[in-house]
């Protein structure tokens, strides 16, 4: 299932980023703590944590992440710190930055870091911050969109203002 521009806008709306339908979504991170490397790392994490049937991941994550941290320097710093922490672990155990690992090694690295069982906490331990700022950040973005919801079986997921008709409809 393909993630679209509509999904980017929905995910941004669910995160409180000030966006309107007419906004021009950039793929250029520009200046700030979340730069090209951080975006590439988020894309790599998304390829791992998103279900395989999701398509258009790179474009979705790139445009979402750049807009998400615009005007939120503190949050951007949290993301950048989490990327640095993940890279440090990745370099120690896999001899490369996380974004440069193939899928299998990336999975081994993220699991080896025990991010899967970590509690998400923006002020917690290294793995807890990775879980919060990278993994859960991306999962929240996906599952608060219509496409992410549909993959899971709900057209109007929590966090998405999908109207008041879908709850009345029976299953197809």
């Amino acid at each position, binding site marked *: 299932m393909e993630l679209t521009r509509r999904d980017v806008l929905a995910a941004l709306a669910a995160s409180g980023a000030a966006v309107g339908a007419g906004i021009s979504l950039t793929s250029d991170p520009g200046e700030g703590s979340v730069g090209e490397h951080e975006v590439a790392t988020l894309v790599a994490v998304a390829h791992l944590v998103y279900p395989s049937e999701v398509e258009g991941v790179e474009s979705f994550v790139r445009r979402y992440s750049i807009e998400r941290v615009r005007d939120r320097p503190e949050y951007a710093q949290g993301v950048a710190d989490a990327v640095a922490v993940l890279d440090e672990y990745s370099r120690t155990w896999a001899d490369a930055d996380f974004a440069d690992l193939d899928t299998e090694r990336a999975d081994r690295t993220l699991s080896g870091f025990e991010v899967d069982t970590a509690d998400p906490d923006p002020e917690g331990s290294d793995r807890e911050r990775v879980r919060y700022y990278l993994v859960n950040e991306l999962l929240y973005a996906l599952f608060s969109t219509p496409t992410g919801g549909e993959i899971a079986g709900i057209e109007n997921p929590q966090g998405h203002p999908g109207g008041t008709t*879908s709850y009345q409809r029976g299953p197809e």
Partner: protein
Amino acid sequence: MNRTPSERADVCIVGAGPAGGLMADRLVSRGHDVVVLEAGPRFDADYDDRVQRMERSIRPAHGPDSVWEMGGERDAYESTGEKYYPLNAARVKGVGGSTLHWQGMVMRLHEQDFRLESETGVGADWPIAYDDLQSYYAEAEDELGVAGASDNPFAPPREQPHPQPAFEPSYSDSLFAEACEDLEIGTHSVPNARLSEGREGRSACVGYGTCQPVCPSGAKYDATVHVERAEESGARIVDRAPVQRLEHDDAGERVTAAVYATPNGEEHRQEAREFVLAAGGVENPRLLLLSESEQYPDGLANSSGLVGKFFHDHLFAGAGGTLDEPTRQNHVGFNTTESHQFYDQPADGSRGAIKLEFLNYAGPSPVEMALGGDDWGDAMLDRIKENYGTHVAVGALVEQEPREENRIRLHTERTDDHGNPVPDVVWSLSNHERRTIERANEIQHRILDELGADVEWTVGPENTGPAFHHMGTTRMGEDPESSVVDAQLRTHDLGNLTVASSSVFPTGGAMNPTLTIAALALKAADHVDERL
């Protein structure tokens, strides 16, 4: 912000929740100078702020109390009764009060609720009848923008349709309706304090699905609507100004000032002709108890000795499970079908009131499952698909008897950020309440069995919890020896002190209390206006 007292005030209201907001709006519209002192902050009212609070409510890193910034020394409390009471989950301090996080269900009490002792021998009678409140209920529904329908055969008489059309039933409601029909259980719509159509600049519901604890669209009513309208009409709202105590005159007949603190450590006295306590069922009695004086050593307005006593709430009873077919849950965060068939009590008083709710948000939502699991990718999706989509649940509010031993009192050792004793919630369940919960469970299981559900959980007498409706702690009555306020909501002891809150409810039935709070606040506003 200037937090010094107003030079002249007709009315000083303590608390900017629904009762305080409605009274401020009504009184300022009648030409009175109104000052509202609110202990909590004025939250940023813009859309983006609400959406960010919504994200906090969905993402598991943030505790539920953090969404509206409850907790810390300011909100310290103790719970020393038989049953623990999670007080800070049950309230919000700030402009808008607890309506910022409420569910938004707004039913009228039944006629029987006002004369319960006479009819059943349990509980207490109110000093007013349903008829006395009926027109105020209609006004309150209009003020809150209630979406409802006149299809409830168990409801008390009403004079006009609800101001907004009811939300249509959900798909799962249709499954329940069929099962209930076979069991001869009547179902009907739910009056909701959320707009089904846009009104006065507010959006209709757009289905964020996070009503409790935050509605980003503003379709769900919260008291900022009336506080802001009062302010536009000239009322003064002072936030972060917790009232420390009330002072009275030498005769002990009138309140003269509310002493409040400000963030810079100063204390001020706000004088006024009339005072209104609208700080909820915990802080109202606490403030009266904190306002002890030589003349009133047991606290203000407490010559009955009942301030803080008869604390009661509604108890949750519920059961749920899964069907072998889709049930389409979690698209919206509110309910659209209930049954009030088991509400009125039998004449022998053998059980309390029961209000059945058919949930539209049974089971976990996909986003919650994604964020809370210990897997990712296809394994995560498989788990979500396996666990989402077939849940059903029937909840219930169950009446709790007002009993003197359940109470809010001042804790003897622990103090808050201003050195005042914190509230101590003493709360327990009676056997009568346990039996009523069991009866609710019985009905719920019958419905789920008829539906063919595999029942997976039950909330019964042993694991029940409160619905966060604080009632009874400044009870209303005719007799000054057995009540704190009279039928006008004015304290028996002090002629210019009104209490507008569910704290005045002598009994609470099993209906969510806010519509009755709003109706009583509008009634109290009329009485204050007459006195001014």
